[in-house]
């Protein structure tokens, strides 16, 4: 019997990378995937829920703050607590920190300007569902496009985050060094992506869905989705246990 992972891509008013995510999941990788409206109250039919990039609610108040009050985010808390995989990309990462599923905050870039460019990232952990197909310390290339992507947390929270190895991606140069020049937004500790203490919720500012095909300039993002799918396939029992 085949067991195929089911992906849900949440659509908030103002999401604009939702179609890119669905395209990569369905057309590039051949997975079962569908859109989920922000008013949905049940995510239990999914194995992986993706919060895509964009400008939910026009970034009003703070990026991700209004989306964090949506019915689907209440359902997302239950989904994550039950062990479901959650991936927040760019604005999706901002929603995850605003709703408290991930620690820290994403504030305005230190340069004060919107950054749209390719960056190098060092994979700091390969024992998460999302990063298992990367090599430890591997340097990958992904695009970023954000104005409020500077990861910030108070010193003690940062120390805690590092001690628990929750930093999964870090901005580095092509040689894997976290230099000031390689940090596109002034993120504390060059943090580009963070995982929850439980390991099943990942947020990152770069866009893996924009680099999942060679024709788009790179394929380094693809393994993030493939890793999650593989993780789900290996655990068919979790779906039966999942609630909510």
């Amino acid at each position, binding site marked *: 019997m085949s067991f195929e992972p089911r992906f849900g891509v949440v659509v908030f008013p103002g999401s604009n990378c939702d179609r890119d995510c669905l395209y990569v999941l369905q057309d590039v990788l051949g997975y079962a995937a569908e859109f989920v409206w922000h008013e949905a109250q049940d995510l239990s039919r999914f194995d992986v829920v993706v919060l895509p990039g964009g400008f939910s609610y026009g970034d009003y*108040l703070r990026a991700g*703050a209004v989306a964090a009050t949506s019915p689907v985010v209440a359902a997302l808390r239950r989904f994550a607590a039950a062990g479901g995989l959650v991936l927040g990309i760019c604005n999706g990462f901002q929603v995850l920190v605003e709703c408290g599923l991930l620690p*820290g*905050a994403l504030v305005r870039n*230190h340069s*004060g300007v919107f950054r749209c460019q390719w960056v190098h990232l060092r994979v700091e952990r390969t024992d998460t569902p999302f990063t298992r197909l990367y090599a430890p310390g591997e340097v990958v290339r992904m695009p970023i496009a954000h104005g409020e992507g500077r990861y*910030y*947390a*108070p010193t003690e929270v940062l120390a805690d985050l590092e001690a628990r190895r929750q930093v999964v991606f870090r901005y580095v140069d092509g040689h894997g060094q976290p230099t000031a020049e390689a940090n596109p937004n*002034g993120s504390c500790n060059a943090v580009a992506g963070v995982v929850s203490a439980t390991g099943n919720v990942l947020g990152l500012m770069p866009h893996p869905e924009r680099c999942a095909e060679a024709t788009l300039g790179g394929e380094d993002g693809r393994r993030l989705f493939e890793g999650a799918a593989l993780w789900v396939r290996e655990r068919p029992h979790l779906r039966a246990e999942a609630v909510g």
Partner: protein
Amino acid sequence: MSKRVRVVVFLKPGVLDAQGQAVETGLRALGLEASEVRVGKAFELAVPEEGWRERVREMCDRFLTNPLVEEYEVLGEVGR
């Protein structure tokens, strides 16, 4: 009865205020001397009068501000 309230929000002093720095640079370019420029935001809202300060504080703590990076001040009655 409701009370009209104004809330002023700024980034905490330790958090880099890129907007404030840009505005300061602009002021200097115009020959207008200023320092310690910070850019914040303000809310005006009407809330039920009873326990209005606590109501507004809860709004600030849970939604209007991110307590990790922002601080706020609740200003009382505002006229219109």
